[in-house]
């Protein structure tokens, strides 16, 4: 299991569009991917649960990946969040 903590920088946070793109990408990995934010754990592949978590701009998110492709999954998740989740 590997983890890394990053800060959400895009203005909308994990809202509809960014969350859809993120969950879609995470779905391609075999590893279990969990987002920990504000004391809550959320399945990183579940769009609905990500939206429910209301992760906003400025929030710290700990990404936890566990499985055969955990390194690649974590790298992808970190780069997506750090680059602003595809938001302009």
């Amino acid at each position, binding site marked *: 299991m590997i983890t890394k903590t990053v800060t959400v920088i895009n*203005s*909308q946070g994990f*809202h*509809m*569009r960014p969350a*859809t793109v993120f*969950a*879609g990408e995470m*779905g391609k990995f075999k590893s279990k991917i969990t987002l920990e934010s504000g004391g809550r754990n959320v*399945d990183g*592949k*579940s*769009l*609905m*649960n990500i*939206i*429910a978590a*209301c992760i*906003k*701009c400025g929030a710290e998110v700990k990404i936890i990946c566990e499985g055969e492709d955990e390194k690649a999954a974590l790298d992808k998740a970190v780069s997506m969040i750090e680059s602003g989740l595809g938001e302009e």
Partner: protein
Amino acid sequence: MLKGIGASEGIGIGKALKLLNKPIVYEDISPSDPTEEKKRFESAVKVFCDRNEERAKRMDQLGSDGEILRGHTAMLSDPYMLSQMNELIDNGACAEKAVETVCDTFISIFSATDDELTKQRAVDVRDIKKQLQKILLGIEDVDLSRLPPDTILVVEELTPSMTAEMDKKNVAGIVTEKGGKTSHSAIISRSLKIPAVLSVENALALIQSGKDVIVDGGSGEVYTDVDDALREQFLAARKRFAKKAEEEKKFRGKQTVTKDGVVKKLYANIGSHKELEAVLDGDAEGVGLFRTEFLFMDRNSMPTEEEQFEAYKAVAVGMRGKEVIIRTLDVGGDKNIPYMNLKKEENPFMGFRAIRYCLSNREMYKSQLRAILRASAYGNVSVMVPLVTRVEEIREVREIAEELKNELNVKNIPYKKDIKIGAMIETPAACLIADLLAKYSDFFSIGTNDLTGYIMAADRGNADVGYLYSALDPAVLRAIKHIVSSAVKRGISCGMCGEAAADPRLIPLLVSFGLEEFSVNPSSVLSVRRILSKLDRKTCDEISEKALSMENEKEVSAYLSSLS
């Protein structure tokens, strides 16, 4: 006549078509074969996704946004959501029940958050639930893709899937029972440019299908007793509106500049961060008045600094570097907020309100100013102080701001170092000492609504004295001229954020006085830009000289009306 909220401007004339929701009823019994039931569920999901994609494509072709519908597909395709539904079916639920249970869980989770965007997603889940259940039950709705010409749709609320299916060229107007200016229904009807009146109580009961109906999306009025005279009147109004809209369209994306090349700032007034979309849609160049009262109303306690920060920041970020003038709390007068324990006053408009209240409730005011300062790191934010009557008030606000800036410096919290602090000029006192106030203000913004009331000492809502209330009265015109001139003399910018800033009769005078910034309703931006493009200083000076030489409002009004 029925009254609602005018959410999308324009006149709609046509025949009513009510969309009654067919009840979704199913028998909640365990299917004999869960495997078969899961197959039935799976094929319904496929139908849902295919149909959605088809509709989204149709929306793209029509130039509207298919993204909402693709979002529904993404939500339903969530592996977690699907596995939950399948699990319920494995445990004996029928597909309809499984859909209901899982969707309801998310509806209540989303609705319970205090985040507006997340709350809105509950509408999407409700829509997904209904659509999916209808597919499972084989319920076909009114075929919205084939409507008779000039249909006025009467619905409880407009859902994204309805919009996608709707035969838009035949929809002349929309009436809903639910929703406000920022609801889904409002945003959709504005983007489709279909006149819409929302929140009409009992519309489905009061309007009969097949009857003639007129919808005025500007005033929020819906007429159900249509005779020839009324029809004629509104046909003419519709023509005028179409012509105006056509001309104004040419001014979208253009600079606001007078005929003789003077560039003006054309901003919009908003009452909530949710109106940001309307501002961008209206093509405003900034926000000239961001009222903050909404953050304090409809609740039981003060909003936290954090909540305020989020709302201010959302607008600062959304405007992408364009100026956003945030007015600090304007409470009191007719705006009472229960938990603030304001005493009942004999004379609330001359009482404990706005900056007066704020300066004696320092901690509350500091938390608002701190929230604004912090948000200023994310855009071009300015602060506006309402109801200034004395120099000390604006000086005190500046002192507090300096104190807060020092605190933020120590904590290394970013803010806009040269944030502007300006005075809203809306009292006779402020007008008379405008030269003094200008020394301590980075800008002025004239609030003509209150200024007119205070100068004329007349309440416009009072039928006996309402006739005195007019921004075209010689007294008010002189006040405005004096305020703008004082600003010009001191070299600071002067704006206007009252309704008068969009009044075609008054605009020539404002140009002559030297007003730099016009802040109007988002939907009036293009109209004002067009008017300004036709004016030059010399003509405006002549008009202004003539208007100011007149002795009464009637004469002024008649003269200025004859020009526009």
